[in-house]
């Protein structure tokens, strides 16, 4: 993943930002059902596990020796990713928030996310391959306040009325999980 992003026209970049900033606002405002409406029904939502890997001596001196990809136990690996979800699971998570017996959501967490570094990497028909980074500040009563830091690797579908999210891989910057949950909607 070393290629430069596409040299996109400002309007197209603005269109992507508009989608991502709207999405961030919905999630921080706890409007999860409206967030679900941004998803394709066929969405794959993934979160690889991240491990401390052994250095491969044969890769000494090369970029691959310390590549991020080597640290990821993703959907194609024989390790165990944190999340491999479809629309139904995401809907289950979203709906939980509105139940009074979802004890770990009440009172709900306060979150504020900054999404940036939005890069369009490829167009393929209606598909858009887009990277973005996020910092998410998270506070809950009884928990320490924490910051989630990560990258999202998305496939968006370009449609007449905007984008829908077809695939998302969330790469978090943690091996040991010193966070209250990885079950948020990132």
């Amino acid at each position, binding site marked *: 993943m070393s290629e430069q992003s596409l040299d996109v026209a400002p309007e197209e970049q603005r269109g992507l930002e508009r989608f991502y900033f709207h999405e961030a606002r919905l999630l921080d405002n706890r409007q999860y059902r409206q967030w679900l409406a941004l998803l394709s029904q066929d969405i794959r939502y993934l979160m690889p596990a991240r491990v401390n890997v*052994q250095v491969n001596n044969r890769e000494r001196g090369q970029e691959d020796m310390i590549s991020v990809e080597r640290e990821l*136990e993703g959907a194609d690996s*024989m*390790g*165990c*990713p944190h999340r491999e979800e479809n629309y139904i699971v995401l809907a289950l998570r979203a709906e939980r928030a509105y139940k009074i017996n979802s004890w770990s959501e009440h009172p709900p967490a306060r979150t504020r996310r900054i999404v940036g570094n939005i890069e369009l990497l490829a167009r393929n028909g209606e598909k858009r391959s887009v990277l973005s980074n996020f910092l998410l500040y998270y506070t809950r009563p009884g928990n320490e306040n924490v910051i989630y830091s990560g990258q999202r690797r998305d496939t968006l579908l370009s449609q007449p009325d905007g984008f829908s999210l077809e695939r998302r891989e969330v790469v978090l910057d943690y091996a*040991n999980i010193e966070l209250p949950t990885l079950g948020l909607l990132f």
Partner: protein
Amino acid sequence: MRVSELVNEDASLISRRCWSDAGVYALEKRGIFGKSWLFLGHDSQIRVPGDFVQAYMCETPIILSRGQDGGIYANINSCTHRGLPVCRADHGNTKRFVCPYHNWAYSVEGTLLTIPQESEVCHKPDKSQLGLKRVPRVEVWRGMIFGSFDENIIPLSDYLGDMRFYLDAFFDRFPAGIEFMGAPQRWVINANWKLPVENQLGDVNHGAFLHSAIIPREAQDVIEKLGYSVVTTPGHGATFRLMPADAPVDDVAWGMEGMGGIFGGDEIQNYLREIQAQAAERVGDLRARMKGLTYGIYPNLSFLWSNTSFKVSHPRGPGKVEYWSWAVVPSDAPDHIKQVLRTNYSSFFGPAGILEQEDAEVWSQQFLGSNIDFADDRPYFYGLGLGEEKTHPDLPGLVSVTANEFYARHFFTRWRDDLRAVEGAL
């Protein structure tokens, strides 16, 4: 404070200090983690010579490795020279572990091989005395590798005792056994190590309440109707449903009630039905009908049946735990089936699990409640079902309904005895 003040005679009252006191934790290290068999890993993680994984025995870092002779080795991950960890990767394959500081190098079995500075001094150190510290006892049962710092501990198979009957209901179902997938997910939670253990030793009755947003009431009804809780030896226990002999295969088969089983389609479901079709032949009629819930091995190993996961609750002080968990799948399943079945674990459990995020929340809050002032005259009530457990003609151990908290009382009876044994020694 004396240990006898922490747990009353029948263990129906448990002091808040059991969960929060630094002195109690020091006793636990010595009396429990220094004296028990502790889970280190599984055969499937170290298949060939040079393979290694990290492990912990309480807070002590361990390298678990397959030696060049094919044997299993467990050594403390700390250089004999200045104490640094000599292994930093979660898993891998190597010929040497090298300390970064002065490059002392050890074999995969833990023997000290080279001291780079040795050539410059006249008196050569005796390297045979300077290897990594070996865990003195390592034994394996059904691929499960345990270690103990107590040289005189009873054999592992005796330690597990009648829990083997219940564990085999799972292990023996699969012709080629099971395997652990990838590195453990390591979740740091501000909780005492014993509460995750208690939760999965027998506390299935929080499910329909804490997790009521996810677990339907009907699931609890089945548990109340068909559920058993057993304690084979104090500290070891299992809960399961014993399905009727005429129950449809889809109601009994392992794996069907997880997300992987539900969303996996015909191929996955037929695979699971196939395993169940052979179950009676492999584990007998009674155990073929067992549909497990939670299992616990004293002191800190847990196993979840439906959400197939092994879990170890590694203490990091009285108020913090590093909770490790692995997805477990049949060893001879095709890779693409393993990749689906692992979601039986990860969708509900682990750091992203839709259920376990609720558990982690209450475990943290229980620690807060255990660490407050002016409430020491209100120990926790552990008396539900006191004395109601009985023996059973077909099921080894003491048996009762799942609402009976005897699993926890037995745990704390053993815990108290283990702490008493070392109480004067600190």
